């Protein structure tokens, strides 16, 4: 585990900023080791420890319990009176990317958001300030079939390649409903309106592309078979590699799963039929405001949902959304996560999760699962993150109150034992910068008069 090099000035600049030190200092160099003492530990999967310690060494949780001694040189954080929880995970967002949609065509599985990661996006710092350590950052919803998505850790200040979580399940974005219908509705003179313009069209074009992918795979199978022969015919011609169909072939081979933007019950059920017909796996429905109408069907199919806590009815297809959607579906046995879909809401996912306690009647622990272990399961990373267990990666948030409290504030965010966000340190730096600015201004005034 490498030392994070957090450009301290950038944090100050985000907070207040003017007279700033420009050297990129390793602000919180902990070398992947930290001991957090005396906090209330919400492990999520192994219950709550009223007052306990948690030790991370080499980026991995080495011990959770009471009276753990700090190995020599390891930073100790006193969390007395505070709450220690797994880093929050956002199952659906679009931050840290250079571009969201390849909206020029309806089918673009070749357009991989993993190829346009932007580690300089300040939203990463925003996410950290709300205890978020990992996000699933996705292709937009302009296309029936968008592109592959990518899972990132919020290692602010580290090079982009170190953010990518290679263990995560490969996913592909699909979208149904209004966004798909309305993309490129207004066209330039001489330009065609993009197909599809209806929900049935969206279903049809996805079917057509999977048919193409099946044919493509069959072509390769035939070729590979023939090429294996002792004396392959001289006239044997290989098929041409097609990046678009390669990704769909991965879907059909079960190497990649679908993340499907869908709002309404009908189109969702239709898509489940389509997936069954072609034999690909739906991992998760996104936003799904009418999930409560088909909770049994979704639960039975073993599909997750990733939704907002509230703020429905912002468009026609969201009109029948209800605040009880997440809580109700969770109680029906659906694997539910609360997502941000935003670089701003991302800092208060814990607030959004807590809303399911009022609407849906989830308990504290159940609600906390919606932004920790549940999204981890949806992303296929629950073996390494999502809860505080010995052997898992040291992705930890320290909160001032219980995270499901309306008064809660994230004080510290740690990834693999390295502190990436420290509210106290930032406030101190900001005050120092402001004092320096004031001093400078006073001198300046003197000069002018």
């Amino acid at each position, binding site marked *: 585990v490498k030392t994070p090099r957090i450009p301290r000035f950038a944090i100050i600049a985000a907070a207040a900023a003017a007279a700033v030190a420009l050297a990129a200092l390793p602000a919180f160099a902990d070398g992947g080791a930290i001991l957090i003492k005396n906090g209330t530990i919400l492990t999520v999967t192994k219950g709550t420890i009223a007052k306990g310690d948690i030790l991370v060494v080499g980026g991995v949780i080495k011990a959770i319990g009471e009276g753990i001694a700090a190995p020599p040189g390891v930073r100790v954080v006193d969390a007395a009176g505070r709450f220690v929880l797994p880093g929050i995970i956002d199952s659906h967002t679009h931050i840290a990317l250079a571009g969201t949609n390849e909206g*020029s065509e309806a089918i*673009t599985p070749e357009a991989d958001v993993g190829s346009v990661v932007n580690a300089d996006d300040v939203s990463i710092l925003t996410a950290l300030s709300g205890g978020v350590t990992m996000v699933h950052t996705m292709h937009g919803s302009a296309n029936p079939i968008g592109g592959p998505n990518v899972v990132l850790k919020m290692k602010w200040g580290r*090079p982009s390649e170190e953010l990518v979580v290679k263990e995560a399940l490969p996913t592909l974005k699909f979208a149904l409903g209004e966004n798909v219908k309305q993309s490129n509705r207004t066209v330039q003179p001489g*330009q065609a*309106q993009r197909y599809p313009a209806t929900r049935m069209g969206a279903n049809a074009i996805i079917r057509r592309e999977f048919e193409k992918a099946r044919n493509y795979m069959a072509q390769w199978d035939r070729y590979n078979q023939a090429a294996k022969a002792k004396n392959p015919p001289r006239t044997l011609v290989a098929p041409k*590699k097609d990046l678009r169909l390669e990704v769909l072939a991965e879907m059909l081979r079960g190497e990649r799963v679908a993340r499907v933007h869908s709002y309404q019950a009908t189109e969702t059920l239709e898509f489940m039929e389509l997936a069954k017909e072609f034999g690909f796996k739906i991992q998760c429905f996104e936003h799904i405001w009418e999930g409560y109408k088909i909770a049994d069907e979704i639960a039975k199919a073993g599909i997750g949902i990733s939704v907002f806590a509230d703020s429905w009815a912002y468009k026609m297809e969201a009109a029948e959304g209800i605040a009880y959607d997440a809580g109700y579906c969770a109680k029906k046995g659906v694997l539910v996560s609360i997502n941000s879909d935003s670089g701003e809401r991302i800092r208060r996912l814990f607030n959004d999760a807590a809303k399911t306690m009022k609407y849906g009647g989830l308990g504290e622990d159940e609600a906390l699962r919606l932004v920790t272990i549940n999204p981890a399961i949806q992303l296929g990373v629950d073996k390494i993150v999502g809860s505080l267990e010995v052997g898992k990666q040291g992705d930890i948030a320290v909160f001032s109150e219980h995270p499901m409290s309306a008064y809660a504030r994230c004080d510290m965010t740690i990834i693999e034992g390295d502190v990436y966000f420290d509210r106290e340190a930032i406030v101190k730096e900001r005050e120092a910068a402001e004092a320096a600015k004031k001093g400078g201004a006073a001198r300046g005034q003197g000069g002018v008069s």
Partner: protein
Amino acid sequence: MRHSERTPASAILSLAVVAALALAPAAAPAPAASGDVGPTYAVRNCRIVPVAGPAIEKGVIVIRDGLIEALGPVEKIQVPGDAEVIEAEGLIAYPGLISAFTNLFLEMPARPAGQAPEFEGFPQAQAQTTPQEDRFPPGPGLLVLDQLKPRKATVEAFHKAGVTTVLSAPARGIFEGQSVVLNLNGEPLRPMVLRNGAALHINFTTERGGYPSSLMGTIAHIRQSFIDAAYYADRQAQYAKGPAGLKRTAYDPRLEALVPFVRDRRPVVFQCNNVEDVKRALKIAGEFKLNAMLAGATEAWRAAAVLKKSPVPLLVGLDFRPPATSLYATQGEDLRKKAEAEIYPGNAASLAKEGIGFALVSGATSDAASFLKAVRAAIKAGLPEDAALKALTVQPARYLGLDQALGTLEPGKIANVVLVKGGIFDEKAQVARVFVDGVLFPYAEVTK
């Protein structure tokens, strides 16, 4: 850089010299030679910085027929009887500087009106949008040479900045076309050409209204294009071996133009506007085993670890404005300004410190004086002067595969020589005389 040789260099050069002489500026002394032979000069009593070796405090350079015939200390070099002697005491002679990435003389034709593809029927099964370089033909096959209009004032401005050689690149689309290396030996274009089709230029850009309209789409499009070109080459090779029983591949000018770059390792230059572009270009270059160079690369220092692992020629631009995506550009004007003044000028210095090779280039600007000013800023930010000089002479010559002919002052090389009053990077440096292909351009009175 290993280029496939097309035209014998000597043929081009002698042609260049002849034409350049015929059209040398009026201020230049009348060429003494006639026929195919250029004039002979002996530049005497100057300090010589050959770059190839240690400086010569008081030396002579003999230039004959466009080439350097001899150079050395005054006491060792005999001035030929037929040479016109250029008294150069108090001046310093450098190899002509090379800017290995510019858009010099480029005047792209305006886009024809109504080029958006027309569609019949409504709605289409799927709008078959056309890749943009096909909408602005001929894409990778475009030779920028056909779009250049040299201007005397620009040539002179570059001479006065010490620059005698440029690579001029196209500047539109994703597959922008192919560049040309020019020796700035006058005003007519053809005699200037050192190498046409020097490199294929690729830009990570997008354009609204067609595929690809996003950076990720552009990356996919670039990758698919190289896959298609390699496939096209394979099918043609298979067909050439024995056409019987094989359906021939339909002729495709776009793929045909790409084949030499994906098969014969001719150079491909990626425009890299930020640290991520550097990594994107390296990934694509690795995937298709391209002979890649990265241009711009003003955030290359931020990718130093990756560049050390996969060394690649860098054509480093000197635009110190933080790119729009940069964390230095998105957090307020104070930080942005500070970064422009204090961080980005240090790019080249950091690369030098890390032992990463690079050339310095003037890029899109045609303001040669501002280029030299930016070089001085890079030096002020910690780039050693000798590293800066190498990055403008021997390094770009090597990258362009022209190091046998350019980049240092050595016998046998092209006579691109700049005589400067003062060190070439001094603020008060004054370029007094310039030789390009042995053609003399006098710019300032030489006073002792």
